[in-house]
């Protein structure tokens, strides 16, 4: 794939979401956001286990490339920050709704 394709607007956003498509389509499925979060957490879990196994390789002397570990740790950290940011936004939205006067 040419690199130009990587900068297509929305390409990054649509890639990992999958289940999140339901939200954009109208948000009728109440579980859509929950599914998207669950999927995101599963991917995050996979990234962290990759990082963990690389860390074990590093301390046992089986790691050929040091940067394999640092890059995996880096990506896992950024993905965690993203997940936490999304979670915080969702919680903010929820509390905002709960504060709505009736």
């Amino acid at each position, binding site marked *: *794939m040419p*690199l130009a*394709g*990587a900068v297509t607007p929305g*390409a*990054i956003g649509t*890639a*990992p979401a999958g289940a999140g498509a339901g939200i954009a389509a109208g948000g009728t499925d109440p579980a859509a956001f929950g599914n998207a979060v669950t999927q995101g957490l599963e991917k995050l879990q996979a990234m962290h286990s990759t990082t963990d196994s690389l860390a074990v390789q590093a301390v046992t002397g089986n790691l050929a*490339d040091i*940067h*394999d570990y640092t*890059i995996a740790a*880096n*990506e896992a950290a*950024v*993905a965690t*920050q*993203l997940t936490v*940011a999304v979670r915080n936004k969702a919680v903010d939205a929820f509390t905002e709704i709960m504060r709505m006067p009736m």
Partner: protein
Amino acid sequence: MAGPFGAIDTAGTGLVLHRTWLDAVADNIANVNTVRPTSGEAFRARYVVAEAANYGGTDGVRVAGAEFGDAQGRMTYQPDSPLADAQGYVRLPDIDLADQMSQLIMAQRGYQANLAVVERATAAYQQAIGLGR
């Protein structure tokens, strides 16, 4: 389809290549004084061949293979060497230390440049996450 960390993964392939290059230069420098008898081949310098590649959607570079230097080496007159032939000659590798040091610098700078890409991309992604916080 490049993942969300396309730039970082691409820089990772560059890191692998430059690490391999560093290994090759280290081997060449380590063997710069390796003496061989004239009946055999001299130590042959290793040169890493790079090639643009695509890893299932992620662009990058990969090691296409290694090329080897001259097997003739430099015929050097060392009559005291136990490996010397009847005329007193041995084979030293055809490696120019100055050339290897320049390659070392290029490999190191390339490695650093790829690490800088990882750093900058991480900073950019973090700023994007911080948007509207």
